[in-house]
């Protein structure tokens, strides 16, 4: 049992639960109520929520990764290759993707997490680029610039997620699981420790918390979430290439996180919901939309550093 500590603890106000329940109902209703395009958007939102949840975890522990998409790529390619080369099923393939990503994140993270701030960001950026170059170069296994096409739909225990609505169900379930996992995490001592490390690492270390190991744990978990997201995404799109998860995509995840809210459990959800539909909706005016992103990013950083989720929190507490 933890103490009712911060003003941010769930206050149990009925309206919060009601809003959450409404959102859940809306999410579940999408395949029946929405057009195929809406369902498509919903799938992308769910996948982005999953991946950005991972980024949020890393950010919550005090580091910003500009190479997050690279781990989605690891999950994607590893799971696809596990199926095509080793004959493993979808589920096992995703597991392979997660494990490979976890191992890479652990080895890499152990070394690079000793860096702080911009230096860590630059290293992750460099790693992302390196991953893209390696994928371009390894044509025998990665398909090079052409990537891998014709990836079969996901199947679990004989059930094929080959329609949009079915896959949405899968993606939604996994995304909700990740949200639930993160929500639970931050109620437990480990979650409080992660926040402590972010807020004042020297103080945290001096109270007996191992900043380095906690950051590695957060990093590995965050990268595994990205890998699972990537492994799912390629089963939906049916295709993967080095440009599917390049630096621009990593930047996109960062934008979702920042605009949605870096320190909130709802941040990735808010960011994904606001930003995912836009590219698909504004296919004609891509540039205007990107100018809008850039401006929104700067404005949020300046005036709303807690992102949209922070705005929501103010509203719940009646602007306390």
């Amino acid at each position, binding site marked *: 049992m933890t103490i009712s500590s911060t003003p941010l603890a769930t206050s149990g106000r009925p309206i919060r639960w009601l809003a959450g329940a409404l959102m859940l109902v809306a999410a579940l209703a999408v395949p029946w109520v929405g057009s195929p395009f809406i369902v498509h958007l919903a799938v992308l939102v769910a996948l982005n929520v999953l991946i950005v949840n991972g980024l949020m975890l890393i950010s919550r522990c005090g580091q910003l990764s500009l190479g997050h998409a690279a781990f989605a790529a690891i999950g994607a390619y590893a799971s696809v290759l596990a199926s095509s080369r080793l004959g493993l099923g979808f589920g096992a393939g995703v597991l392979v993707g997660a494990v490979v990503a976890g191992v890479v994140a652990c080895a890499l993270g152990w070394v690079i997490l000793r860096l702080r701030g911009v*230096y860590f960001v630059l290293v992750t950026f460099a790693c992302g680029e390196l991953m893209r170059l390696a994928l371009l170069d390894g044509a025998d296994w990665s398909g090079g610039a052409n990537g891998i096409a014709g990836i079969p739909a996901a199947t679990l225990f004989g059930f094929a997620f080959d329609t949009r609505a079915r896959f949405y169900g899968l993606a939604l379930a996994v995304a909700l699981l990740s949200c639930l996992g993160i929500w639970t995490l931050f109620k437990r001592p480990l979650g409080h420790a992660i926040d402590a490390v972010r807020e004042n690492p020297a103080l945290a270390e001096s109270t007996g918390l191992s900043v380095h190991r906690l950051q590695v744990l957060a990093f590995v978990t965050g990268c595994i979430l990205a890998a699972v997201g990537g492994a799912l995404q390629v089963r939906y799109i049916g295709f993967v290439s080095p440009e599917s998860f390049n630096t621009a995509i990593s930047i996109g995840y960062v*934008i979702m996180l920042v605009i949605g809210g870096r320190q909130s459990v709802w941040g990735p959800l808010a960011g994904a919901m606001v930003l995912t539909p836009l590219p698909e909706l504004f296919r004609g005016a891509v540039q205007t939309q990107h100018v809008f992103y850039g401006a929104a*990013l700067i404005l949020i*950083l300046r005036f709303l550093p807690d992102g949209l989720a922070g705005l929501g929190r103010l509203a719940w507490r009646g602007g306390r």
Partner: protein
Amino acid sequence: MDWTVLAAQASINGLIVGLLYLLMAVGFTLVFGVMRMVNFAHGEFYMLGAFSAYFMTTGLHLPFLATVAGTFIGAVVAGALLEWAVLKPFRSDELNGMIATIGLAMIMQNLALMFFGPDPLSMPAVVRGATRLGTVVIPTSRLYVVAFALAVLALLYVFLRWSRPGRALRAVVEDFDIAAIQGIRSKIYYPLGFGIGVGLAAVAGALMAPLFSVSPFVGATPLLKAFIVVILGGLGSIPGAAAAGLLLGLAESYASLFLSTSTADMLIFVIVIAMLVVRPKGLFGKGEA
């Protein structure tokens, strides 16, 4: 295969590319040194410099010297204004400032796409013909680029070494805390540092415009190279950035004789990552990681 000719050719190309990297990197490290900000929009200033050179020569028919000078001044002013208007709140906030420059880069690139379209434009060469240096033949336009780049660098050196604002700027870059204690006026030096830093990027873009094509996408690679050079040479060290820039240009040029481009690129990233881990300050840099 005459190896001496190849080597000489590679050296000249390496030098040109190295000068480009140097200009980008010195500007980038100047911005980092003054504002502690990793400027993701640096490549977009290069891109705008290229467009400026294009329009000044083809539209206004200005001579090249005037073009480069005009581009530089324009970029310094624009950069200073942008810093003051947009980046001021992030002056001591490294991480958020960096993210803000990502936003700035998106705005700049997409505005350019909106106004100029995505298709590459080709600028006529500054001067035609080729020059012979011993056994090596070089297009004269490339020699021009080298000459102009060296002139810009000489001016920069004089400014940083002998003028009062230049020395103050160097003081801020080399030891931020001491400069702050001595009361360097941030109102002037932040916009100035940023302006000159991006001005150098714009000059690089203007100089390279006749050699490569001009489009809203040309900023990405120079930005990447700036990162690499500055990491290797040390974030916050101007001589480090200069040395590393030239070294990288030459190394890439020589490596292309023996390795495939992709292998060379990957090798460079591995070195970058190793450098960041083993010696984040780079070969010459200051500041903590």
